């Protein structure tokens, strides 16, 4: 019986799962090393991340999971919900230990909870392709800052790469301080040491924008205002679909000349 800690990454967590299996440990709890630092436990062990071990657990799970649940462990993990690690650990043990599929056993509180967390994170992941707004900079790069609640930027890579194959773009997570840059051939994860944009709302300094950028933003705002049917005004419904925390990134909601 032990407390196990890891570096906070998904790979790190999967490594913990691997160690539990190979060394036959049944942990009392699993947590990020950082979160556990203050607490003094008699038996606390830090497990160093190993890509290989993580890979083996991931592959093993993939064989067991139904197509529609392939990403469930990752999405649920990203929710950072309290106790998520031990819950996922129990779930993974159950899928490895039963010969039949238990993923649809919604009477089991773990399965149901994980499904819900997955949905929550997925919904947030979906908001990236919805609410990213590119600004064209003078060097021809389409830039967007955004701040999703969870670390979901990577899920948008495939979508953006396919859609904007013929333009250079950079989507930057302002909260986690990293971005994805596409150079017309492939994508790179980047960290910008110098920020030529407002770190709160992602707006690029005006002198660095391409000529015409402001005009398209203004046109978009005009369009937004004029397509609305005033007789049917329903601000609550609007907020429900488009959470207010994204408004600062949207020229239609936060245009300034």
């Amino acid at each position, binding site marked *: 019986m032990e407390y196990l800690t890891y570096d906070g990454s998904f790979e790190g967590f999967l490594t913990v799962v691997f160690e539990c299996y190979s060394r036959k440990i049944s942990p009392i709890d699993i947590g990020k090393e950082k979160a556990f630092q203050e607490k003094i436990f008699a038996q606390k062990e830090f497990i160093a991340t190993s890509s290989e071990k993580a890979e083996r657990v991931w592959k093993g799970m993939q064989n067991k999971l139904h197509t529609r649940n392939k990403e469930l462990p990752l999405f649920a993990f990203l929710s950072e919900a309290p106790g998520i690690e031990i819950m996922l650990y129990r779930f993974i043990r159950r899928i490895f230990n039963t010969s039949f599929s238990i993923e649809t056993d919604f009477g089991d509180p773990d399965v149901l909870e994980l499904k819900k967390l997955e949905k929550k994170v*997925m919904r947030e992941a979906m908001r990236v392709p919805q609410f990213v707004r590119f600004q064209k900079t003078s060097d021809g790069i389409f830039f967007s800052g955004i701040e999703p609640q969870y670390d979901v930027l990577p899920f948008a890579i495939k979508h953006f790469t396919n859609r904007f194959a013929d333009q250079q773009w950079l989507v930057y997570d302002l909260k986690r301080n990293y971005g994805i840059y596409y150079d017309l051939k492939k994508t790179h994860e980047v960290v910008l040491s110098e920020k030529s944009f407002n770190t709160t709302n992602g707006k690029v300094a005006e002198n660095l924008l391409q000529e015409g950028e402001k005009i398209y933003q203004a046109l978009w705002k005009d369009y937004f205002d004029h397509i609305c049917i005033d*007789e049917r005004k329903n601000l609550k419904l609007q907020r429900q679909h488009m959470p207010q925390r994204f408004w600062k990134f949207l020229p239609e909601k936060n245009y300034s000349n």
Partner: protein
Amino acid sequence: MNSSVQEKLKILADAAKYDVSCASSGNNRRNPGSGLGSAVACGICHSFTNDGRCISLLKILMSNHCIYDCAYCVNRRSNDRPRASFTVDELVDLTINFYRRNYIEGLFLSSGVIKNPDFTMERMMLVAKKLRQEQRYYGYIHMKAIPGASPELIHQAGLYADRLSVNIEIPTDPELKRLAPEKNFKSVLTPMNQIHEGILTYKEERAKFRKAPVFTPAGQSTQLIVGATPESDRQILLLSSNLYHEQQLKRVYYSGYLPVNDYDKRLPAIQSPPLVRENRLYQSDWLMRFYEFNAEEILDPAHPFLDLDVDPKLAYAIRNYHLFPIDVNRASYEMILRIPGVGVQSAKMIVDARRFRRLNSYHLKKIGVVMKRAKYFITCNELPSKAYTWEPERLKTQIVSESISKYKKAGDTQLELFPLVLQPKKEEQKAIMVWQH
């Protein structure tokens, strides 16, 4: 880009806003690697207007000049209002630049009839053609087919567009003729049939050679105006059902009549659009498309109008009280779908989960069943049915009073009293599905 484009944009967005269809869905088109854009099967909403509707496409008129005089339309020729027309290049430029900035999923182009149907259709078709051929644009294009345009032009438009639609607007022929003297059912149904046949031919040829030219791969849709004319909901639903089955339409949209031309005495005098009725029609449409209901079950000849107090599924359950209570641990998926308070997702989860254990009301609640509503219609492990103890009419009063008090607490605008019970769920489903392709 200059200020004239800005003015035109304002005028022509204003003129386009009453067309409700927003879906950019129904087709997957992958960018071959060097072009711009892709279409994803379920569409993405990029923004939401102050009226809470999704903005997915740049929905715009090419022109609001019109030679026709339809009573229900703001753009009719007898109205004195600012008029404008975009050039083909202006529209191409706007679409591309909005698209590159991730404002939109694509273009939804409609238009008033400028000189004659062919002149109008040809310019619309050119916009799509230029986008595809000159800009190598692979994003979504939805175009209106102009009734009366030549089959050749409609065919060409179908080669570039993902979806073509013809709006019926008024649900019966005599009423349509009365309000739109230049139109009749035939003029609307002719292009609709042509598109339908085009799609069938395309599908056949696709099956033989993979390289056969694509023809409106996302199918066609139409819009009906509700409340401008005296048709019953039953007539409307039977028409929709027919359009789904016979014409294989992808969507029928309902638009609550807005009194835009209140001087016209052929139209009813109303203060505000019939939003509740519109919502009930959407709910019924939803029941037909996803809950395996048919139009006759939703409204029979004795009940030609939808009940505005309760949603159509609940109304059905109350009318057909003898079919309940339903045992969730045994009943078929189709029957479970009919329980008020159970959605498609929960119905599927119930069927999956009951293989592992007998479900009780705690499980059902966790799965997402609205027990407050469902409890009158089910039996499960421990829950004895209360259903039989209720008189249908009393049951309805009971449920209505429960839900009214709930929404009184929630609302911040007047509209909240009439919650969009089924609509938001649709968006949610969309949101989830995008990642699964």
